[in-house]
């Protein structure tokens, strides 16, 4: 029996499970292979939708489905929290005490937010990385009658790199539509020396920030929040007054990956081969999605394009056939939509060797994102696209 154990039922883990079960259908039916997904909640959440709770009419219920409903019936699902991986015994321990063995291990454990690392974050700052936080930000925007809005980043790397810029654009657009723009300042704080990590995207976004009179503050690494004075302070010594503060919280990989010796502290990101997606040189352990240390966007799109590589490598290893080199090596492919506000968007499509060349923002790419959000459940988790 060859056991394929997949930790995490997000985009990456779910697609890998479905693709492996499709490729190894006969072996699974013959009882020679077992594919198991372990997920903490048993619910698959479409996280890109959170932003549309704040800026659209999306409801939390529409962004979550039972993981079981998305998995091929040949895939087993275990709902539980992983506490440790034991490499010596090729086993994973759950909080319940249950132990699961593996011959092939897939780490699709995502990233976790840690707002508690910034003092006063919870009482002063908003974010959009959970449904609850996105709803709270909506309420704060509804109550906003003018003043200073500051959007910043309190730690890198973080999930969905364009998101803070998108949120800034969408807030500015909303303020104009509500007649509050003249009574408001909008500030965007970037931790690096430009608006966005990828230079071509920064070159596209910077003039848009200027056109919308959004003030760009570069090298602003959020250090502290002073709730008395309502200022956010940077490591570089700047401070900005806020009436409404929106911060990307610090992100980390799963703690059990650090505890099990798979990922270094404090980040907890898995050292992952750029092309094979193997973890730390281990031939039977793969990582994908947010959990890796790859120099790519932490985004569902990345996991989506990585999943077929992991599935192909596992299927080849299980059956002993040669690897299909074309489908078994990751090229760094990522594709994501980028909202600009006013019903316009653009598209970021790139890989390790080809930086994105975002087209001029237009309505088509905004509608593309809206359509993709609707089509997600029928296509992506099932490995149909």
């Amino acid at each position, binding site marked *: 029996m060859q056991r394929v154990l997949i930790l995490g039922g997000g985009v990456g883990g779910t697609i890998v499970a479905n693709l492996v079960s499709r490729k190894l259908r006969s072996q699974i039916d013959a009882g020679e292979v077992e594919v198991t997904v372990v997920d903490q909640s048993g619910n698959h959440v479409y996280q890109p939708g959170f932003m549309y709770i704040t800026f659209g009419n999306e409801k939390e219920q529409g962004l979550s489905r039972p993981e079981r409903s998305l998995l091929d019936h040949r895939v087993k699902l275990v709902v539980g929290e992983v506490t440790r991986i034991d490499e010596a015994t090729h086993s994973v321990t759950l909080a319940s005490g249950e132990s699961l063995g593996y011959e092939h291990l897939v780490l699709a454990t995502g990233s976790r937010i840690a707002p508690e690392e910034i003092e006063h974050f919870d009482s002063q700052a908003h974010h959009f990385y959970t449904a609850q936080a996105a709803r709270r930000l909506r309420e704060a925007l509804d109550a906003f009658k003018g003043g200073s809005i500051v959007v910043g980043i309190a730690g890198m790397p973080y999930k969905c790199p364009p998101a803070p810029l998108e949120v800034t654009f969408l807030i500015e657009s909303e303020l104009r539509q509500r007649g509050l723009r003249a009574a408001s300042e909008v500030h965007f704080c970037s931790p690096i*020396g430009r608006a966005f990590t990828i230079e071509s995207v920064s070159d596209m976004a910077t003039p848009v920030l200027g056109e919308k009179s959004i003030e760009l503050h570069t090298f602003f690494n959020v250090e502290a929040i002073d709730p008395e004075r309502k200022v956010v302070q940077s490591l570089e010594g700047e401070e900005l007054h806020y009436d409404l503060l929106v911060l990307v919280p610090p992100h980390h990989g799963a703690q059990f990956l650090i505890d099990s010796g798979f990922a270094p502290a404090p980040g907890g990101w898995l050292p992952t081969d750029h092309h094979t997606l193997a973890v730390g040189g281990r031939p039977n352990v793969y990582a994908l999605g947010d959990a890796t240390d790859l120099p790519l966007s932490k985004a569902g799109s990345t996991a989506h394009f990585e999943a077929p590589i992991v599935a192909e490598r596992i299927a080849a290893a299980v059956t002993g056939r040669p690897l299909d080199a074309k489908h078994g090596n990751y090229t760094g492919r990522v594709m994501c939509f980028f909202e600009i506000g006013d019903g316009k968007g653009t598209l970021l499509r790139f890989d390790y060797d080809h930086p994105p060349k975002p087209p001029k923002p237009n309505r088509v790419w905004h509608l593309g994102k809206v359509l993709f959000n609707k089509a997600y459940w029928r296509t992506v988790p099932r490995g149909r696209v």
Partner: protein
Amino acid sequence: MLSEQPSTSVNRTIDARGSFCPGPLMELIRAIRESEVGTVICVRSSDRGSRVDIPKWIEKAGHRLVGVNEVDGFDEIVVEKLH
């Protein structure tokens, strides 16, 4: 661009080779946060952007750029934490 041999002795070295922008800068920022005033930190980076981005950040953050040296195809950027 500075290109001098750092005379100050390095207390901490960060090997960020193989990491892409902004990885080396973020590694330096983490080290600055963790270190005492006066600590001299050397960042090794194979990303060519670092030799521009990191000195700019050091200037903005008010620390001291000790030197930028090219060594065997990568850069060593040395900074002293001043506050």
